């Protein structure tokens, strides 16, 4: 046990039990998994990605590269969770990753013995040849050896949600600068959001012994938190990581609502994705403690000096029975002395500088801590750290310590400033990159900006918080910044100890100083090349702590200096974001809206099988007891419709109401055929082109009154056609007086088709003349049905039979269906679904989505003769291009299998009989196929070169994907009733 005797922000009155790799431990509320493990003397927490080297925790925050664990079990198991950010709860279970059979004994750590072969560029060099070995040998072995945790093997039982928040000032980070900024902005009355990744506000103030406004840092944090909580215009968001900065002052954040609990509370999500729209932002994300690259620096027990201090002061956890610190800077020395005061047994401070400032030297002396100046750690030993070798100009010595804190200075956490393309700039005076161009509306305060002294952080936070509020329109009263004593910020730039043995630059991806040297030798010297060649900074931590060291090493090798060597920029997300929270509510049956038709419940009661078309749920077919498959049901539905009468809900078509004196003019310009001449009470089939001459949509438009038309569009294109019409009216021809309204939701529409459909309709209309004379083919009647329900009746036919479409206000849709079923019962009226509808339209040669595929012009579909030559319309000029009139263009025809028992498949390509299956010989393809119960064999529609000239010719339909290869006969696309007589009776 290395729990310190007292102190720390943990509740020692309560004990929590948890398990790591099946072994039981205890901790306290306020602990993280990492601090609790350290307090229990567990230093080995994982194995590395490539060499499976034993690794311990190195940080106390989300930048952690090593201590990745699988958290929870079963369906809630989450791999690659950073033990440093996991809040301890009672019953927590975690397991180490990347080890087999156990963390302690790992067979694959033999990788280390062959590490000379696993160096930089290893993958590129080793697995190039022979190609066949990749799939069978290399990849399985690599997958077994490398990689991180295991994904859970059951669906995630938890829920996630998304939310949007608006504020005047978003403050990211709640350390000294962030708290000061939030206070200054909050006091102005501005709406402030303070987002903090940790579960506790305070940042580094939680770990440091500073004096602010005459009291302790913790008192300051408590006062600030109390004040901010009391302000109604301030929203505190702990456990919230702002992971991305986006255009338009939008920020992405994840709030971990229930991650600190064994399972989320009832009715609460596990995580919530926030889109925060902020007029201004103050980034106060602090800084990372910079590692020093030295031989043996990855041994468990070696960690960041500030992390070592945080574990001692904030968590009351010793990282070892005794410790030393290897530093280059005053901040780390002060933190180490804080840790010693908190009870950590600190044996020595090894500093690379010739002397410490007097104040720090005096503190060390008072605490009995030995100071070794001009010292460098050149070696470490032990599986977990047992000793270190220190070299000074005066000689070498070995110290027996279980923990070593290392600090090479501060690397400002400027990750978010780069998300919109900003490039960090080098500041020689602090030997660090600081934010360059920042996203609009963002200001950076405190250590993230390279401002390290506590008093300066408080002042900068106050100033930037006030100016952010003032920029957002709030006059901030110039309250004084909290005051703190001056703190020493001396340092010496120092990145790399020369010496023998593996010195790690990127611990998560196992990149060593040697790998960087190799990349240099082989010419991969640009930072982006170094990154890709060695994988430096490409692990789940994205090089937060390692990039700087890698860059410094390369700068040493090239002799060009760090700013000339460059820096890698950062992209979102700042920390990994679970896919579940990005999906939010939209998964499983809520993946997208399911739109029921007005007759959905009725169809459900009839046992319909549904198919999703667009977002609509439509009946595909209505199976009857005893039918052995869908085809039998569909055949029955088609036959019943062709021989008697069938009924289908067609409410899903887009319906657009057009009113005004210029509707006819508009329609003439958007359809290839004429509509201004359409008589009132008549409907016409129309085809629309895109301006490039290809077909956009088709449908029937009816004229209800002189200045009133109603258009139908295909189900899929309803929104697109509406948008197109608005484009015409608003952008192309704003002089036209036409008003649009979508009525797709207002009207239910049901098609009744078949030779008996007139008799069925006659029974439900309120005194309307539906005879062939009273309501001829393509006629429209307005009146009422079912004793007073307003209705529009269109005599249209998609099936080719005598048919009508009856529209009623949507609430009456189900009643209309029931009335039609009752009226049609004597004729054996049969509900049919979209499968039967598809069969009947293919039998008639009507085009649909498979033919209106965005690659076909009117001529390809045999519709060119519809085009008016008396007017201009959208797409006319481009449709006149020579290529569109090329007789070699594949054109719509019908197909029958020569062997009438054979099955046709859409997607098959046409070849001349005997021609080889090459792209050069391709003559088109099959677009739609169906089994025609009317003809007793499969039929197809397709696009064939010079198709209409080739009636009766046999061609090869070749379908290599599904192994189809057969001869088919070219025929008219209208398989039945080519003259269209049935629909006119």
């Amino acid at each position, binding site marked *: 046990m290395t729990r310190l005797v007292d102190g720390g922000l943990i509740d020692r009155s309560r004990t929590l039990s948890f398990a790591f790799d099946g072994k039981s431990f205890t901790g306290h509320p306020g602990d993280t998994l990492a601090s609790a493990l350290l307090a229990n003397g567990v230093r080995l927490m994982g194995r590395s990605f490539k060499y499976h080297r034993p690794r311990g925790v190195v940080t106390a925050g989300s930048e952690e590269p090593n201590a990745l664990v699988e958290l929870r079990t079963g369906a809630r198991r989450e791999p690659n969770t950073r033990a440093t950010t996991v809040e301890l709860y009672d019953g927590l279970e975690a397991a180490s990753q990347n080890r087999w059979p156990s963390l302690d004994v790992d067979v694959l750590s033999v990788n280390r013995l062959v590490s000379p072969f696993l160096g930089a560029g290893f993958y590129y060099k080793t697995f190039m040849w022979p190609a066949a070995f990749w799939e069978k040998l290399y990849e399985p072995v690599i997958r077994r050896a490398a990689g991180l945790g295991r994904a859970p093997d059951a669906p995630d039982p938890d829920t996630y949600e998304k939310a949007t928040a608006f504020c005047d000032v978003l403050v990211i980070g709640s350390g000294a600068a962030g708290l000061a900024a939030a206070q200054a902005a909050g006091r102005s009355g501005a709406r402030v959001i303070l987002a903090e990744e940790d579960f506790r506000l305070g940042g580094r103030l939680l770990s440091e012994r500073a004096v602010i406004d005459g009291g302790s840092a913790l008192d300051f944090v408590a006062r600030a938190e109390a004040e901010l909580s009391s302000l109604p215009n301030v929203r505190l968001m702990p456990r919230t990581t702002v992971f991305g900065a986006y255009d338009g002052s939008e920020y992405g954040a994840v709030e971990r609502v229930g991650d600190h609990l064994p399972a989320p509370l009832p009715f609460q999500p596990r995580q919530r994705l926030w889109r925060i729209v902020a007029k201004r932002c103050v980034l106060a994300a602090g800084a990372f403690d910079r590692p020093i690259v030295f031989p043996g620096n990855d041994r468990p027990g070696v960690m960041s000096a500030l992390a070592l201090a945080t574990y001692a002061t904030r968590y009351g956890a010793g990282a070892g029975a005794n410790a030393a610190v290897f530093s280059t800077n005053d901040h780390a020395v002060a933190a180490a002395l804080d840790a010693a005061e908190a009870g950590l047994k600190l044996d020595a401070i090894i500093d690379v500088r010739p002397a410490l400032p007097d104040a720090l030297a005096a503190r060390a002396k008072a605490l009995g801590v030995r100071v070794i100046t001009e010292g460098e750690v050149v070696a470490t030993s032990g599986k977990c750290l047992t000793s270190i070798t220190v070299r000074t100009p005066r000689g070498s010595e070995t110290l027996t310590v279980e923990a070593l804190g290392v600090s090479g200075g501060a690397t400002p956490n400027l990750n978010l400033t780069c998300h919109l393309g900003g490039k960090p700039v080098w500041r020689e005076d602090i030997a660090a990159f600081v934010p360059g161009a920042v996203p609009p509306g963002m200001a950076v305060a405190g250590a993230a900006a390279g401002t390290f002294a506590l008093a300066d952080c408080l002042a900068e936070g106050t100033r930037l918080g006030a100016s952010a509020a003032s920029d957002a329109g709030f006059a901030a009263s110039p309250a004084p910044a909290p005051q703190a004593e001056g703190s020493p910020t001396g340092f010496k730039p120092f990145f790399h100890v020369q010496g023998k043995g593996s010195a790690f630059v990127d611990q998560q991806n196992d990149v060593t100083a040697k790998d960087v040297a190799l990349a240099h030798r082989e010419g991969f010297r640009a930072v982006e090349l170094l990154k890709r060649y060695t994988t430096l900074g490409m692990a789940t931590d994205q090089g937060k702590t390692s990039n700087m060291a890698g860059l410094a090493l390369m700068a040493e090798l090239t002799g060009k200096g760090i700013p000339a060597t460059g820096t890698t920029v950062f992209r979102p997300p700042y920390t990994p974001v679970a896919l579940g929270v990005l999906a939010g509510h939209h998964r499983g*049956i809520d993946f*997208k*809206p399911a739109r*029921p038709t007005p007759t959905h419940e009725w169809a459900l009661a009839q046992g319909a099988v549904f198919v999703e078309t667009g977002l609509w749920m439509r009946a595909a077919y209505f199976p009857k007891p005893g039918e052995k498959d869908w085809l039998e049901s569909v055949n029955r539905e088609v036959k019943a419709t062709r021989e008697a009468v069938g009924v289908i809900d067609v409410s899903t078509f887009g319906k657009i109401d057009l009113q005004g004196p210029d509707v006819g003019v508009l329609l003439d310009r958007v359809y290839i055929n004429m509509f201004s001449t359409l008589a009132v009470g008549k409907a016409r089939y129309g085809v629309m082109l895109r301006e490039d001459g290809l077909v956009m949509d088709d449908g029937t438009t009816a004229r209800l009154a002189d200045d009133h038309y109603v258009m139908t569009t295909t189900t899929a294109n309803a929104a697109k056609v509406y948008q197109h019409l608005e484009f015409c009216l608003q952008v192309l021809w704003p*002089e036209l007086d036409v008003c649009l309204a979508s009525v797709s939701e207002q009207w239910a529409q049901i098609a009744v088709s078949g030779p008996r459909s007139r008799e069925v309709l006659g029974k439900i209309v309120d005194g309307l003349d539906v005879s062939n004379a009273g309501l001829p083919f393509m006629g429209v009647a307005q009146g009422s049905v079912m004793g007073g329900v307003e209705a529009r009746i269109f005599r249209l036919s998609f099936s080719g039979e005598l048919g009508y479409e009856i529209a009623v206000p*949507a609430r009456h849709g189900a009643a209309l269906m029931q009335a039609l079923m009752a009226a049609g019962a004597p004729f054996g009226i049969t509900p049919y679904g979209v499968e039967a509808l598809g069969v009947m339209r293919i039998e008639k040669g009507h085009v649909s989505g498979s033919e209106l595929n965005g690659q076909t012009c009117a001529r390809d579909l045999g519709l060119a003769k519809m085009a008016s030559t008396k007017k201009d319309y959208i797409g006319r000029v481009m449709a006149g291009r020579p290529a569109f009139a090329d007789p070699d263009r594949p054109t719509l025809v019908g197909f029958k299998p020569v062997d009438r028992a054979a099955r046709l498949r859409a997607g098959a390509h046409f070849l001349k009989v005997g021609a080889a299956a090459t792209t050069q010989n391709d003559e088109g393809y099959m677009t739609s196929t169906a089994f025609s119960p009317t003809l007793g064999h499969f039929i197809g529609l397709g696009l064939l070169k010079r198709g209409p000239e080739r009636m009766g010719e046999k061609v090869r339909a070749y379908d290599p994907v599904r192994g189809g290869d057969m001869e088919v006969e070219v025929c008219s696309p209208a398989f039945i009733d080519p003259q269209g007589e049935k629909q006119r009776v």
Partner: protein
Amino acid sequence: MSDLLEHIAPTRLVPEGHYGPEGATGVSARAANTSASPLAAATLVARKGATGRLIVACAAAGLPLADAPRSSGGAGLEAVGTGPGRWLVLAEGMSGPDLVARLAGMAQGLAAITDQSDAHLILDICGERARAALEKGVTVDLEPTVFRAGDAATTVVSHVGVTFWQRDGATYRFAVGRSFAPAFLRWLTVSAAEFGFALAGTGRG
């Protein structure tokens, strides 16, 4: 997906009832246009260049209109701006064709009027935590100093197009396309459940 709604078909309106922790009702919603109490609705679209004259004509007939995303009431009608020169008009105790005729009389040929009485689910949402629930899908700022009584928005919520406006007090009235109403209610129910959610007027399921 949430266990809360797993057993309810996604094509069906979420049945009326209480969702979430017992004893708490932070959010309430009620369907305002049920078969028992239908609401007539129509779109009113100004003819080319006629917006100003239409506003004058309607004001004279007792219905003030703003050419803005605002709601207004008068002459027993409730009008909501949904686009330049466009309004959605609601009326209680009237049939759709009656509302169309009434508006035609007011508009004097200056507008196209289209019956939409069957096109929407009209849902009134209120409660202390209504905003907290709505911010899980509404991407418009609902802060009372920003979105005030009478303000309206046509927007998209959880992949569903809606028009909503703030009525008297803190009630938000939503007009949701009829076929999208089940999806909208599923989103609302899971979003509001943590605060305690009382849903009424959607039938017993």
